[in-house]
């Protein structure tokens, strides 16, 4: 592998995945096996990188040659130190499920039957318009020319359901629910099917509400999507070093309310981003980003850490922007959150709704990713929500735009949070009350 390089690294991926795609009946049942390998080599601080979808000797040779060709053409990188001379691996729990490793086509078919039966049990008139259930095993290995070598394995399952209620063009609703888990049982397909069905029925008569200012309560995953859009790309060391983060120069400052802690929990049990080591071969760990309102620091991979003469925080990812993509070998590492956790509190979601008295409960938004994490300007279109009236959920709401500045939200407008952490992208968030949002409606 070293062939002509000063130092080199190889990263391999193997994925075995099954999937069933359905609507009112099964549309297709699918399996795919894939392998890939990338070679990253360094010559006089010039980096070359090339990948192939094969582990055969001739293809590896080709990747090495191409990588060398690129290194020779590349500019010297003054910030390059070296590959890690010491890999590390920590014990983590709940990332491999034997059931997923042994999954049969019958398991997939049975699960679809369960979803369809549950939806029709809630109401015969409901139609499943699209759905998929997938599960797979991802194995990675990393090795470098300093004799370091590591392997890891993880399982991942996902379920997505969309259900339509109503039949006239003006009174029709398509609701969606998704769940992602390291465990086959963690998909909870029956609960998911029941939730999406009852919501679709309620949403049929949804209407906008008048414009104004409102207190809001965000369902855990909807708030997680907001945090994902507004924080995950700016709390990384590369964003800070390259002047595209609003958090640069603010470490040690109060940037949020004192109740707010946001920590990257790289070893969370069963976490979607939990791994024995990151994509540089560095053990994952707990990295405080905001603690009691004070900005603690940023997320590092080896390259950005070397630039500042510090240790990596174990946040190297090769799949940024395409979470758990089987193609993770095709990219060079960048820092990214593993499991970014917004600290929950003790109340139940129902208690928070009750305490809010009057406002808007937001279940699902679209377009939140069009918000600007650099200026903090947040806007999202509510595609599914309910009025909160006298502490109880009232009529269904959709088609209104909610907006606020996310930096203001952090500072004292999100101090009431529930105990129900849920995953959304790289984030885990609880149901959260957000005070004082502008609503553009009727």
């Amino acid at each position, binding site marked *: 592998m070293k062939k002509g390089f000063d130092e080199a690294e190889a990263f391999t991926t193997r994925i075995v995945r099954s999937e069933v795609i359905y609507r009112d009946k099964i549309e297709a049942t699918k399996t795919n096996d894939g392998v890939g390998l990338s070679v990253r080599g360094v010559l006089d601080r010039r980096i070359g990188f090339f990948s192939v979808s094969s582990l055969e000797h001739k293809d590896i040779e080709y990747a090495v040659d191409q990588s060398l060709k690129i290194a020779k053409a590349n500019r010297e990188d003054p910030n390059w130190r070296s590959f890690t001379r010491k890999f590390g691996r920590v014990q983590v729990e709940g990332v491999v499920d034997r059931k997923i490793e042994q999954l049969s086509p019958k398991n997939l078919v049975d699960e679809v039957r369960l979803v369809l039966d549950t939806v029709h049990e809630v109401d015969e008139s409901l139609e499943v318009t699209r759905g998929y259930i997938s599960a797979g095993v991802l194995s990675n290995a990393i090795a470098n020319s300093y004799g370091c070598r590591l392997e890891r394995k993880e399982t991942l399952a996902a379920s997505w359901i969309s259900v339509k209620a109503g*039949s006239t063009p003006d009174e029709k609703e398509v609701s969606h629910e998704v769940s992602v888990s390291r465990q086959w049982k963690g998909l909870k397909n029956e609960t998911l099917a029941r939730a999406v069905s009852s919501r679709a029925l309620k949403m049929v008569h949804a209407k906008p509400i008048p414009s104004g200012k409102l207190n809001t309560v965000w369902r855990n995953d909807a708030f997680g999507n907001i945090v994902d859009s507004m924080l995950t790309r700016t709390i990384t060391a590369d964003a800070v070093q390259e002047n595209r983060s609003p958090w640069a120069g603010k470490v040690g400052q109060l940037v949020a309310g004192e109740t707010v802690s946001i920590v990257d929990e790289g070893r969370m049990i069963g976490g979607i981003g939990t791994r024995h080591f990151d994509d540089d071969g560095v053990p994952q760990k707990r990295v405080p980003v905001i603690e009691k309102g004070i900005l603690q620091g940023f997320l590092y991979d080896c390259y950005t850490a070397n630039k500042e003469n510090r240790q990596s925080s174990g946040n190297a990812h090769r799949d940024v922007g395409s979470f758990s993509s089987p193609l993770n070998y095709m990219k060079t590492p960048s820092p990214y959150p593993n499991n970014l956790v917004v600290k929950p509190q003790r109340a139940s979601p129902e208690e928070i709704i009750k305490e809010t008295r009057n406002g808007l409960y937001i279940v699902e938004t679209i377009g939140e990713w069009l918000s600007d994490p650099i200026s903090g300007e947040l806007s999202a279109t509510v595609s599914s929500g309910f009025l909160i009236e006298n502490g109880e959920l009232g009529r269904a709401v959709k088609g209104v735009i909610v907006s606020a500045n996310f930096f203001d939200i952090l500072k004292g407008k999100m101090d009431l949070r529930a105990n129900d952490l849920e995953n959304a992208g790289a984030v885990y968030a609880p149901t959260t009350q957000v005070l004082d949002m502008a609503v553009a409606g009727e």
Partner: protein
Amino acid sequence: MEELLQYLTDRATDLGAKYADTRFQEVKQTLISAENGSLRRYESDRSSGVGIRVLVDNSWGIASSTELGKAVLRQKVAEAVRLAKAARKLAACIGLAKVKPLEATFELPVKIDPDDIPPEEKVRILTEANKSAVTGSEIKNSFSRLGFLHDIRMFVSSEGSKIKTDITTCGFSQTSVATANGTMERVPEQRSQCAGYEFIKAGDWDGFAREVSQLASKAVVAPIPTPGTYPAILDPELIGLFLHEALGHAAEGDLVVTKESVLEGRLGESIASEFVTVYDDGMVGNGYVVPMDDEGVAKTKTSIIEHGRLNGFLLSRDTAKELGFPPTGNARAQSYEHKPIVRMTNVYMQPGNHSFDELLKGIDFGFYVRGRGTLGGQVDVGGGTFTFRAGPSYLIEKGELKHMVRSVTLAGRVLETLKTIDAVGKDFAVTTSVFGGCGKDGQMAKVGDGGPHVRLRKLTIGGRAD
């Protein structure tokens, strides 16, 4: 390879499939990025694989592998058949619309293969352009990319279709972040074309990158418009994005079949003003080139709206059968491993006969909404509501362009908005991107879109809500 695909297809029918197709794909990609004057990443790859799709009774089974050995793939055929059988009781494919078997090869003419250009030259062009974008101290970040994609696909079906396509795409992208008075503004922009390296060679990328930075510098000090409903002119880039998101998705046959689409049941109805004619076309302007789809069907020029009336949907073979129309060649898969699903190719509006000045003259107070620097958009296909984030745009007063405005969000209901179009320009542009694509059901597809400049009587424009 064609022989291997034929062998696998025959093997599938021997095992009981009433229809089978096999797809081979080889992709070569290179993505080079530079930031703040330094080369950041040079990532290059070559990947390939084979996917097998079989129909047993009414049940589809799909299996794929990156390993290309005959023995491995033979096993994959058996696996696809086994999967189809396992799901047989709960499966419900009503079959495929009939098509004539097609034997065709389409190779996009390329003057210079990007692979023949030494990495040194690509690095030089990119870093020089990246540096030239640092036009002043207010530019805090300059990020540039060069992208190359070479996508080769082969298709063999048990009905006798044999197809090969070979498409090369190149592009340059620039994102500049400017700051002023504590505000940061980010402007992303790109240019791509299905062509060889000659496209990169002919471009003035230093100038292009500089212009993006100048736009960011101007935008960061521009005011945010007061939210409200205004007359507006959309440029070709933005009308393309609008038609793609707001209309194109709703015209996808699979969403019509499930009655999710806002266009379901409206065929022949007037859904837009009489000036609106919209097509989906696999071969147009500087769009993405799609001569045939991934079911081996030739992509036709599909009319979606004809003078305001809903005229047709985009169809795969199964949705065509279900809706009772001929397929339109819109079944596309991200790669050999994905199931072909209904996708757009290049959706655009047909030009009219107005000059840009004539469009402007009709507006007393409104906005010229531009796509350059747009962040994209999203639409709720069922409800028919859309949201877009436009690039830096301009105020129009008494028929004249005035100052720039930033953070322009557009929102509205698709069908209402299409009816307010009162004039269509005579210019025309369709563009694509080597960097991005359209996401649906977990698959990405390369698409293009565009049209002329278009005037709307009423468009909801949101700036800052408070």
